[in-house]
């Protein structure tokens, strides 16, 4: 039977194990397909220094009789994603879209959205398996006059592209790529939908313009909020503490350096000659020895010596955080609110991998009329006048919980929220410290959106489908600190609003209570006092204590001038509906138009 042993192609393997790649259910398959295509487009544009302009169109596929069922009933869709990226040379197109494990990003230690060169070709393969339809690609590079059109499928037995059609066509774009995949899927709105994914993508990538044509034919545009591309991340060498023994041995065998010392200093980051000498001494290895000649035991000693040595943290220009301005811009143009704040933490390291955490918070309803104004009007109008029975005032309806947007390398994570380190950090933050209601171990309450971004050369996902970030202490700590930084700013703002609200209430409360108190005193004294005079006297004291001007000053501070020094960096909606604070002009315009 040994003769039956045979090689298995990676395509065959994944075709049978498609859940490993996020194609577990028709609903998830639709989302994964859009996600892989959009991620690729964004990566390609950014690498080429182009501001991304992306169109996503999802159509119901026609049935055998040519009619199209309603989107909510349909089980077959055509997904089209088009970008204005640099385009892909004709010679590469087949492999990029119809060969698994082919990509540009796997072998580099550098931050990017896709990593494994498996996503878009897996989507194409899924479409092919479920509908039999090849995937269609149009791509044009700037220095060629015409675009190339391909129809491709994968020969799963060989993991090789099969080209069904290939032609040059005229295209109305100077450069870019368009991919069309037909697949068995299911379309739903709401949580974990394509709609949500694109909204979050727009927030996380305010430099991108995204147009989304939904299966029902509506067009939603997410305009650009900033004009600058994120700084391009640089590739780095591995950090000595982020390497396992086996990988170390492999690197020692594969290296192009000659001596042990040069191996250590050249193939790793943060190893100076001095440190290399130290390591060699600890390991009892001659630093000038030929690295290829070392025995396994010597390499192991070297490895152990590294483990007990201190190194600088890895360089962090391999990371490209979104940045505080852009985060605020992303939120401002998409999430209406009264207060925005963002923080980008300095880079940190887990297991030798540099990473960086960013958090942004939008708070309030931003409905044009501030809650403060409403309080004032309500107080002045004397409430709705309806007396409440016992038990009625406790009926506040279900509490609104904060929404959490999780991002890894600018890509929204939509599944497995509760397993994610970032989400847990939100739960374990004590939001009551910041004046926000929170049940024990639950999300904070209120009209609040919390965005958390982890940028890293290697994001440690808990599972195959890149859905949740694993709980490394270092990561949790950074997330928590970022949440705290934003929380403290938010608390300042909330306290100011509360203070102003209190001032307003004081004014009205005392006036109302004075009526009651004066009347009760008069009755207690059997009517033997001048009730009107008592009222007047008390009102005078009230006026003095609640100080009309002081109140006005506080109210102004909270709602008119917007941002003063203790709120530096935050964006605040003033009572006239304007956004005060640092914000890219474009985002401000987009928000004003919305």
């Amino acid at each position: 039977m040994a003769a039956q042993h045979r090689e298995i192609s990676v395509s065959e393997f994944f075709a049978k194990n498609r859940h490993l790649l996020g194609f577990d259910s028709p609903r998830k398959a639709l989302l994964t397909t859009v996600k892989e295509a959009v991620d690729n487009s964004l990566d390609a544009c950014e690498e080429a220094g182009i501001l991304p302009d992306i169109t996503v169109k999802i159509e119901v596929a026609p049935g055998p009789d040519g009619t199209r069922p309603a989107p909510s009933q349909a089980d077959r869709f055509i997904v089209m994603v088009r970008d204005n990226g640099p385009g892909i040379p004709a010679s590469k197109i087949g492999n990029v879209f119809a060969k698994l494990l082919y990509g540009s990003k796997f072998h580099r230690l550098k931050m990017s959205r896709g990593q494994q060169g498996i996503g878009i070709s897996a989507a194409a393969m899924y479409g092919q398996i479920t509908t039999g339809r090849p995937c269609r690609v149009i791509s044009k590079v700037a220095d060629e006059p015409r675009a190339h059109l391909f129809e491709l499928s994968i020969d799963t037995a060989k993991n090789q592209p099969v080209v069904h059609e290939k032609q040059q066509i005229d295209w109305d774009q100077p450069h870019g790529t368009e991919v069309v995949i037909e697949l068995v899927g299911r379309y739903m709105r709401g949580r974990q939908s394509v709609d949500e994914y694109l909204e979050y993508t727009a927030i996380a990538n305010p430099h991108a313009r995204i147009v989304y044509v939904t299966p029902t034919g509506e067009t939603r545009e997410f305009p650009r909020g900033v004009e600058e591309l994120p700084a391009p991340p640089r590739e780095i060498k591995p950090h000595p503490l982020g390497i396992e023994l086996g990988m170390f041995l492999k690197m020692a065998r594969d290296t192009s350096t000659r001596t042990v010392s040069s191996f250590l200093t050249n193939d790793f980051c943060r190893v100076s000659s001095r440190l290399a000498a130290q390591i060699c001494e600890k390991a009892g290895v001659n630093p000038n020895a030929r690295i290829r000649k070392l025995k396994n035991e010597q390499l192991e000693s070297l490895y152990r010596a590294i483990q007990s040595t201190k190194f600088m943290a890895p360089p962090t220009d391999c990371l490209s955080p979104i940045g505080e301005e852009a985060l605020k811009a992303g939120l401002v143009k998409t999430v209406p609110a009264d207060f925005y704040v963002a923080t980008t933490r300095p880079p940190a390291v887990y297991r030798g991998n540099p990473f960086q955490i960013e958090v942004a918070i939008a708070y309030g309803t931003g409905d044009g009329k501030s809650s403060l104004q409403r309080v004032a009007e309500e107080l002045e109008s004397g409430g709705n006048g309806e007396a409440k029975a016992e038990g009625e005032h406790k009926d506040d309806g279900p509490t609104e919980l904060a929404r959490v947007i999780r991002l890894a390398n600018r890509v929204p994570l939509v599944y497995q929220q509760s397993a994610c380190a970032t989400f847990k950090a939100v739960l374990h933050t004590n939001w009551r410290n910041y004046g926000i209601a929170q049940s024990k171990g639950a999300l904070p309450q209120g009209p609040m959106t919390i965005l958390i971004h982890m940028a890293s050369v290697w994001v440690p996902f808990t599972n195959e489908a890149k859905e949740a970030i694993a709980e490394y202490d270092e990561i949790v700590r950074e997330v928590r600190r970022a949440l705290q930084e934003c929380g403290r700013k938010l608390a300042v703002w909330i306290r100011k609003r509360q203070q102003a609200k209190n001032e307003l209430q004081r004014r009205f409360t005392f006036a109302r209570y004075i009526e009651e108190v004066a009347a009760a005193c008069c009755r207690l004294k059997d009517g033997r006092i001048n009730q009107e005079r008592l009222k007047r006297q008390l009102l005078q004291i009230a006026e003095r204590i609640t100080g009309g001007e002081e109140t006005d000053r506080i109210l102004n501070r909270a709602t008119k001038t917007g941002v003063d020094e203790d709120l530096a960096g935050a964006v605040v909606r003033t009572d006239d509906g304007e956004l005060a604070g640092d914000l890219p002009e474009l985002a401000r315009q987009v928000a004003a138009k919305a």
Partner: protein
Amino acid sequence: MATATRTRRKTNREVARLLEGLADIVIEAARKGEDPYFEIPVRALSNVSFNKKRRIIEMGENKTQRSFFNLGMARKFMQTLLVADALKVLQRENFTTSLREIYYRTKHTIAGTNENTFDEQSESDTIIEDLEVTLSLLREELNVRAAESGSIVGPIVFVEGGDRIDCTRQGKAGKTVPSIVEPGELDIKKVTADFVLLVEKGTQFNRLSEDKFWKKHNCILLTGNGQPPRGVRRLARRLHDEFGLPVYVLVDNDPWGYYIYSVVKQGSINLAFESQRMAIPDAKFLGLSSFDPEKHGLPRNVGIKLTPSDIRRAKELLRYPWFQKKQWQKEIRHMLETGLKYELDALANKDFRYLTTDYLPKKLKEQDWID
């Protein structure tokens, strides 16, 4: 320390004066252009202590200021005056009412708002307690009555509500004990009894009343059907103070029974300021003792296993200053050791009338009680 024991009841006029005093504070402060405030003794465990000499729980001296022009206090300040006003009506027209009725009476919507003066009864209850301690008045003096669920039989004659009542002629069921038993409301005319037997549960009261125990042993039987209400406790205290009758307490053998005895004797922690008028430091614990089941041959199977909360409770009691006496420690520890509690009803296992014919006579004869 709290003021000395005061047995004379304040007159309606005096109480009304004190209530009016609150208005005077407001008027005076308003005249001077100052923020008016009341000084209210703190009612919290932190301001309570056991007076070893007087053997009662007493309230300390800590006070809090409640001022009007303070956003956090304004509502309560207003409520204080509303309640004071309502209480004054009771004095002026000389009738009693309940806590709940005061709540309803003082509840209304504040003009020009949708805010109620009171949202829940607990708010007005708190204010009434504040006024009690602030003005050193008893709830009875404020004409606020509690539930009435006690009964009395035995050789005592009193006038209540204008009627002369001879409690030897009240049938088996006895006379309902009113909630307010202060002189004026209830005037004791004649007492020939030798002692007071305060029984936790109505069922034993019925047993003893039916068997005319009070006649044979010349005592007054009192019950409160559970934790005795204020009227019952206060009446026992008056019989003790004014007629020198010893008070014996008969409760189930469980932590709750011990607690009832403790409240009768030393007063309660919550209402420490009333101890001086309610507590009976000389009251004796007659039973059921945790040693009684053995002494009287009750089988294990009429015991009840202590629940975890019983055990927690008993351990708490062991730490109370007034249970530090050796005998009490022995008593409570024995319950914990056996792991069982016993109801008085369990004595019926011996005989339906064992309580009347054997248990109590033996206890009284042998002076088998705990102080």
